């Protein structure tokens, strides 16, 4: 209940943030520009529209999560409003979870709006509603949920600029960690390999939420991957939020 109230306030607060609308404007522009870009191609125009559209939703969604998420907790501390909040019967864990859920709700609304524009553009081109695209969008949203948790984690102990850099680094690592698999394949057994193996397992693998290629090219997605990918995202998010709560509980604001 208290978490819901904080989430509601966070949602209202995020709604007033001009950065959100600026990013949404650019995302919409990116999606609309996909039609123009498609004209420049030789061959499959629909592929360009889908590629650029899905990339716009993902990139601007991540930017929203990072730019708004990293200021969420910090702003409360910076403006001293945290004292008023924590003086009330609210647990710090509830505060963190409320902030997180409020931003997730904001991102859900934004992703839904961007998806609506995207599907309309695709519909204008094909005169068909492609439900498969929603699979890619759903997993983009799951990725945004995880990035939001990361932004909240860094926001609980660092400045917005540093938190943005850390969260961005997390996003980049998440999309490049598959490279460790190539290194693993070439390494001889030993402590070095074990270390790389451990890193590969622990580092985030955001490619688990990337179904864009399959959806755009109409490739079959193994049905067995949906649930593990979803659970992976939820477990990782729970881990990051747990860490954020643990750190935030130990913070001294004086």
């Amino acid at each position, binding site marked *: 209940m208290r978490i819901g109230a904080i989430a509601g306030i966070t949602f209202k607060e995020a709604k007033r943030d001009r950065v959100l609308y600026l990013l949404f404007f650019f995302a919409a522009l990116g999606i609309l520009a996909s039609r123009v870009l498609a004209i420049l191609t030789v061959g499959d125009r629909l592929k360009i529209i889908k590629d650029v559209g899905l990339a716009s939703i993902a990139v601007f969604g991540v930017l929203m999560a990072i730019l708004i998420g990293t200021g969420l907790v910090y702003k409360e501390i910076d403006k001293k409003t945290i004292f008023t909040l924590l003086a009330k019967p609210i647990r710090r864990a509830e505060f963190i979870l409320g902030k997180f859920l409020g931003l997730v709700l904001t991102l859900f609304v934004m992703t839904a709006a961007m998806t609506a524009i995207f599907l309309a553009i695709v519909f204008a081109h094909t005169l068909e509603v492609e439900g498969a695209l929603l699979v890619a969008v759903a997993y983009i949203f799951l990725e945004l949920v995880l990035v939001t948790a990361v932004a909240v984690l860094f926001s609980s102990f660092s400045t917005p600029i540093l938190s943005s850099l850390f969260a961005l680094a997390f996003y980049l690592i998440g999309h490049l960690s598959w490279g460790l698999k190539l290194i693993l394949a070439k390494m001889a057994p030993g402590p070095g390999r074990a270390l790389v193996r451990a890193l590969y397992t622990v580092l985030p693998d955001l490619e688990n939420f990337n179904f864009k290629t399959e959806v755009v090219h109409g490739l079959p997605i193994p049905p067995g991957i949906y649930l*593990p990918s979803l659970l992976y995202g939820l477990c990782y998010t729970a881990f990051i939020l747990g860490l954020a709560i643990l750190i935030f509980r130990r913070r001294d604001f004086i």
Partner: protein
Amino acid sequence: MVPATAPRRGRATLLLVGLLVAASAGFSALKVATDKIAREKLPGSSIIYVPSGKFLKFAAFGYRALAADAVYLWSIQYYSTPTIDDRYDHLDHVFAIINELDPRFQDPYEVGAMIAVQGAQENRARPEAAARLLAAAFAILDRGAANNPDQWIYPFNAGHIALMTLKDYALAETYFERCMAIPGAPEFVERLRANAIFKKGDLQTSWETWLDIYKRAPDERTKKIASNHLYNVKATMDKAALEAALAEYRKRTGRPPAGLDALAGAGLVREVPKDLDGKDYVYDPAAGTVTTVISPWRR
């Protein structure tokens, strides 16, 4: 006095740590599980969006050489991963990026061409793909030569590929000629050129070239090499003339001659030639072949 909330706080922390451990164990196990699920890949999809080097030059700001290093390092890993079946599909494009980012970076030209030749050999069963890869090898080395006109290694490598892999001896001759024109090119390149001319079938020019090398030889070793090649060129010319005469003799008489002297007697050759060492050629009447008494390379 310890506040009453302390044990509750401790329990909550323990619960949180437990949650962290469970969550990390959960996502690690799920990571292993998702890794085991094979996902469909598009041929070449892993590098389809690698932009051109011209674009990357701007995107890399002042770090062009660093960007070239990064792409080069990645390419080495990429091309040394045999499980990527379609890895050769965009080879020229990938190395063009490195070359455009850092035109004086020498290794990628040589390594790129080497990978292309290796790819061509792996794709022997698919002649079209093999030909495309060999063309990529020449394209990479041509870029190397154009960007580094002071380096003889690129036309040399191209000539070597033309001679040994493509077996296009005229092309090999052209590349070796270009290589010889670059200051610092090793002297053995002119011998490779002479050999390419021989393999091309232009025996007269080959004889003249080897003779020139023999006359200008700076040491005994080079003289010996040129002499062996001269022996081989002369033997090839004589063999061709004698075997043509033997065929004509058989046509006229219906049987092979008992010895090569019979060819002179029949007016088919002016005189029976001897090898460069003044020794007679060995004639096998049963097979109708003429060979040298010793291998040119064991004189």
